[in-house]
């Protein structure tokens, strides 16, 4: 069951990250922390950072580096017009899947 939950979360990482960034730019740890605040979405850094990096590489996220007075520079991620569009498509697909699954689970689906 744990493996199933892990796989399910992994499939939703991209959507979760974009949902956090929809509220505004954030750096990696902020995103991880923001997800941790939602029960069931406790995605860790080994899952989130590679996806952030890939999305940035694909041009779906814009990266801004801000120097830190003491620690390493923070990499702030921000959505681009392409990822805004992508996010809209993902959310509408997610809603469709959620509704269908709810209908199936509740027994009125065919």
């Amino acid at each position, binding site marked *: 069951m744990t493996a199933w939950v892990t796989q399910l979360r*992994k*499939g*939703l*990482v*991209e*959507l979760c990250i974009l949902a956090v960034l929809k509220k505004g730019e954030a*750096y*990696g*740890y*902020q995103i*991880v*922390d923001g997800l941790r605040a939602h029960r069931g979405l406790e995605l*860790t*850094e*080994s*899952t989130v*950072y*590679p*996806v*952030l*990096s*890939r999305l*940035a*590489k*694909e041009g779906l996220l814009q*990266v801004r580096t801000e120097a*830190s*007075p*003491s*620690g*390493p*520079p*923070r*990499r702030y991620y921000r959505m681009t017009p392409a990822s805004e569009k*992508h996010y809209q*498509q*993902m959310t509408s*697909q997610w809603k469709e899947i959620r509704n269908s699954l709810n209908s199936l689970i509740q027994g009125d689906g065919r």
Partner: protein
Amino acid sequence: MNAAVIEVPPALRHLVDSRLDAIERALLQGDTPRAERRSILEDIETQIVEMLSAEAPDHEPTRADLLRVFTRLDPPEAFAGEPLESVRPMRTTRAPAPAAANAPPATQSGYATTGILACVGGLTMLLLGLPLCAFTMLFSQSQNLLVIAIGLVAVTGIPSLVLGILYAVAIHNSHGRPGGQLRGLTCAAIGIAALPISIVGLLGGYLVAVSESDFLIIGSFVMLCVLAVVGVIHLTYRSLELLVGAPRRPA
């Protein structure tokens, strides 16, 4: 989280670096490109420093503080896991496998236009061109009709042979393709086999015409009928499969 961020004391720096090195090795195992490794490591370092700041807000962080932070992080080997596939529906994040790249797009039921065309071409030749040739050679003396019949065989046979071969290759290449495996090897087989069958049939018809043997005439006619019946039945089966959907196989 945005509280004052402390600097990692020099005495602990090597521990942080060792941790980051271990993560980089894990990322290398997972074939993560260099640029992505660098950005991931920067994000992790930021996180370590922030967590350490929160762990020791009022004193210089100690080795114990840093080790406690490490225990709350994913182990380095967690970064070597299989790369996550994008969940986006409209674009793929990676190039398809070279073999699969040549596969034509499947229709909803897993067939491609190439396969359907190969099948239709092959059956047209077997059911129309070949009987017409046979009829012309056996029962008609019209040279024009014979030229038309042979033309029909050539026009339908050669393209369906080529399409059939292409489709068979496409089916082979579609194994493991994300978009689903192509089906309809029979379509490819019909496309490929139609021309050789017709050539054999025409040669047989010619021999029959030359020998004027009733036995050979009846035998050839029966063979053609059998081929036509098999072809029609199979075409019907495939058409029904396309129309009403293939029987479900257990996953």
